[in-house]
């Protein structure tokens, strides 16, 4: 099969992931046809996991492995979560293939999950200390959107910073129905707990303000 990542990109990705600290596991859910981009997503994740021994890929089927899917709240395919070195789910999920510009939020999440300090502790300070309600952050993207990976990374970093926060990238073209449900026609669009909306690559403070106001 032809490779998805060409030689140059392979080299870039390898260098990028070189500083990864601890092991990360990706759990990918696909299903039999019809599944738009399941094959490609599987191929991308497997090509990337071959570039570092810190990364493993586990493949699941949405229907055959329904209990796993439920554990991570997976309802769409392709969809994958990242687990830390203890196999703990920290709320970091990608729905759809992280190609195009979105490769950047994918790589940055791998680095963050491996324990590289993403330097948010000061910014977040004590603002999430009293957070008790579960928070779900959806970030709708297109693969041609250069401002989107920043928005996704912010959301994923918040998820990694607090057990109550879960964050998911949603590739709007693969998942047209849910995008329409949330009236997405401009990206990045950030939807918090299905009700509060932010548009554009907002600084992390804007996420925090919205979460605090929930």
């Amino acid at each position: 099969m032809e490779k998805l990542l060409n030689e140059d990109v392979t080299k870039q990705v390898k260098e990028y992931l070189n500083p990864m600290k601890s092991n990360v596991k990706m759990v990918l859910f696909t299903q039999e046809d019809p599944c738009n981009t399941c094959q490609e997503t599987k191929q991308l994740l497997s090509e990337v996991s071959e570039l570092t021994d810190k990364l493993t890929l586990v493949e699941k089927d949405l229907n055959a492995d329904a209990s796993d899917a439920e554990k991570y709240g997976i309802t769409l395919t392709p969809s994958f979560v990242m687990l830390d070195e203890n196999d703990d789910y920290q709320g970091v999920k990608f729905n759809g293939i992280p190609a195009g510009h979105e490769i950047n939020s994918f790589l940055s999440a791998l680095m963050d999950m491996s324990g590289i300090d993403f330097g948010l502790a000061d910014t977040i300070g004590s603002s999430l200390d009293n957070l008790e309600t579960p928070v779900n952050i959806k970030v709708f993207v297109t693969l041609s959107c250069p401002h989107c990976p920043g928005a996704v990374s912010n959301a994923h970093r918040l998820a990694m910073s607090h057990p109550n926060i879960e964050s998911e990238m949603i590739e709007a073209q693969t998942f047209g129905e849910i995008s329409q449900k949330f009236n997405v026609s401009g990206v990045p669009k950030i939807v918090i707990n299905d009700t509060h909306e932010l548009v554009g690559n907002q600084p992390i403070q804007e996420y925090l303000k919205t979460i605090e106001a929930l």
Partner: protein
Amino acid sequence: MFDFAVESQSEQSIFDQQKHFDFAVIGGGPAGMNAALYAIRKGLSVAVFSLEIGGQLHNTSEVDNYIGIEHTTGGQLSESFHHHVLELGVPIKTGHMVTKLEKPDDFHITLDNGDVYTAQTVLYATGGAPRKLGVKGEDEFANKGVSYCTTCDAPFFKNEHVIVAGGGNSAAESVVDLAAWASKITVVHRSQWRADQIILDQFKDINDLTIHLETQILEIFGDTKMRGVRVLDKTTQEERVIEADGMFVEIGNIPKSKLLDGLVEMNEQHEIIVNRDQETSLEGLYAAGDVTTQPYKQIIISAAEGAVAALAATQYLMHHKK
């Protein structure tokens, strides 16, 4: 098939150790990045503070007018600027907005997380944000059909009818980019084309393209999303309605000069007034690129202004270095 636009990463840890710089650059677009390149090669201690790297380069797909590079994309050009500057070891702080710039003695640069850095000279190169039409319905339907980023949002208008508002290069490029997605494109512009002929020449391959010049948009209407616009034909003075599923507004930029309100001289459009050395009216503070009064907002011009600012700051520091 998919492509993969991997971006370089900046090492952030230096900012824990170093808080003062000879030359601090605010803004990581063409102006800021080229300034950083020139400054570090001159031996200055330099840092870049920018929400993201590349600036408006990310809003443009094709770039065909940067000498020496016959054809590239905004994303690729941004990445090559970024890579070049990182290779030279310039620390770049991304992910944060600069929220305050003061000059009690040295310049104090405050970030949105409260961190403060100081510098003896500063380049302000924050570029511009898309100009709005300023008509009824624009805010209501923003991201509900009305968009300011063609590369980001064109895929949402597959097989739909979209309007492009504007008549400069970015509007013309928007038309060309949208042709791959939309089934019908209508251009509405209040005067005549100002775009390069070489871009307009590409229109001949576009199927369903209608152009209304001398036509002003009066209002955007819709329900849960935008449904169309009401326009005034300036030649006949007649008003009419154009129904459409979306609209891309490409009518230029407004300078992001707010942080300098009251600190430096600006013109009526809030562009920062600079001299040939890119000096503002405040000693040690330089400005370059789209945020200045320079009328031709282009990548190469912004980059060149950044270089001038860095060289001028080097001269200044030679005589004033503390």
